[in-house]
């Protein structure tokens, strides 16, 4: 567990990331959430600055008001007290494909400088060195949400020049390439990593370092990145407020399921 001390607050790296992710959600937005950090972020946002955000899960819970943190997007905890219970087909077609999802959360084992993500396998695709679970809904969220927030472990080998398999398309090769491939909307807006926050240039769609987490420098982050990372203008990631930490610890995840 990494603990960051920024007097007078003490918070963990996971807490910082959850708060940073939560702040990407605006009030009244439709949020397509996944297991782990995205759930922490979505629940925190709903209980702080975005009380009217609509949380949806691909397994079929719409407008969730969770009293306990779920262990999966198919968990009964997502559906009790929800606005609507349906199935995957309804969520993917009527909501995601129809353009009703404002922000989707995704993650993966590898990510490149255009926000393309690999959660399928490392090595040769047909004879992989390491196999992961596969796309799940990540490819679909990456293709069809209005924007995506990516959660990533920040290590050199996980942020390489070229990833082994594009499970979830980001800005592909930058510029207009995403549109040219046939994708009608969306694209990654931010990558919240264990070391900082990456955003994307408006036209080239290349990632740049927006902020580095407290205790690190822009150079630290750049050195741990496998692709060339523009760090000009990067600032320190804003720290959690007392209220955010309080709600995160006491309301969102008192069992410390995902929080460290």
């Amino acid at each position, binding site marked *: 567990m990494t603990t960051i001390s920024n007097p007078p607050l003490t918070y963990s790296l996971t807490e910082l990331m959850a708060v940073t992710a939560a702040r990407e959600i605006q009030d009244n937005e439709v949020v397509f959430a996944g297991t782990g950090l995205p759930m922490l972020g979505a629940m925190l946002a709903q209980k702080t600055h975005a009380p009217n955000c609509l949380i949806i899960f691909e397994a079929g819970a719409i407008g969730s008001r969770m009293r306990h943190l779920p262990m999966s997007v198919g*968990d009964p905890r997502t559906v009790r007290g929800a606005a609507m219970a349906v199935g995957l087909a309804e969520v993917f077609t009527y909501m995601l494909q129809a353009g009703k999802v404002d922000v989707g959360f995704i993650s993966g084992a590898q990510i490149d400088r255009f926000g393309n993500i690999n959660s399928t*396998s490392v090595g040769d695709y047909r004879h992989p060195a390491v*196999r992961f679970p596969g796309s*799940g809904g990540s490819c679909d969220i990456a293709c069809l949400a209005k924007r995506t927030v990516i959660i990533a472990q920040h290590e050199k080998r996980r942020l390489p020049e070229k990833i082994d398999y594009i499970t979830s398309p980001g800005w592909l090769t930058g510029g207009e390439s995403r549109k040219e491939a046939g994708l009608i909307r969306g694209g990654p807006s931010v990558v919240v990593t264990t070391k900082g926050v990456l955003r994307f240039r408006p036209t080239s769609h290349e990632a740049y370092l927006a902020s580095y987490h407290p205790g690190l420098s822009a150079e630290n982050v750049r050195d741990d990145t496998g692709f060339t990372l523009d760090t000009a203008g990067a600032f320190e990631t804003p720290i959690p407020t007392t209220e955010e930490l309080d709600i995160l610890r006491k309301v969102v995840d008192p069992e410390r399921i995902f929080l460290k």
Partner: protein
Amino acid sequence: MMSKLIGLAEAAALVPDGATLSLGGFTTQRHPMAFVYELIRQKKRDLYLFGHSPGGDWDILLGAGCVKRVELAYEADEAFGTIGPRWRRAVQAGRIEWEDYSNFGMVTRFQAGAMGLPFLPTRTAFGSDVFAKEALSAEQRAADPRTSQLKQAVMESPFQPGEKLLLLPAIHTEFCVLHVQKATESGLVRVEGQTFADNIQALCADTVIVTVEEIVPEEVMRQEPERTLLPPFAVTHVAHVPFGSHPYAVYNYYDSDPRQLKDYHAAAMIDEDFQAYLDKYVYGVPDFEGYLAAVGKTRLDSLKADPDYGYSPNLKRRRLD
């Protein structure tokens, strides 16, 4: 009104080696686990599985050597185990044939089958390797009618020139097995909570077997026809199997079993331990009652859903030691 009730072993015996099959549920809820254990106990071989986001239902089935080929989007137990250990090992060792789609892609394929169409269009997957790459070779597809001859196709919309659609081929399976909360003897089925893709999976199968927590009277079901999941002709057999999804959750009945899932994931990382797990919970017991006895009544009682929640709100889910 004819009764569709059947015993679990008798139902599993209907599935021949080499059959095409889909299983209901999603990652950690409502998988027909009792049926899966029975398939393993009956030593089925060369099954072809179709699914979107299965969990340990597939993992134990393919770990036990029952499966030849899978078409899927994901295989893991989410926060209970972020990769299916036997799935990972099977792929890495070249012991299984597979094809990757996205969840939306697989669901689209089931929906096409349910709708009686050869395909459905979607706007997903463009630009990805889910779209660009194929795990099965053209030869493998050509040699086996259980798999679509084409992974997909692309077309331009005749209504909006320049707009591309991805066409995904319908799924048809010989069997679909679901686990749900309530059914009548006559085969009317009700799901509580999320439906996942259970309805469309059932509608593209020849034979649908539903294992169920509770048998309810016909009149109860017909008081709320809005809650019925499937038309009567879509359900072939009903087996009454309380706790039939353990170690996975069934909304309003019981929660996931974190201890059992932890034990499974630990065991499934190591070949010998996985065999020992199978010996203890599947081969070493005569039936599902034996399995439940091996898990233990105290544990099962601790999982029972609190009616105010539909799950067990005080269940310890992490840091079990």
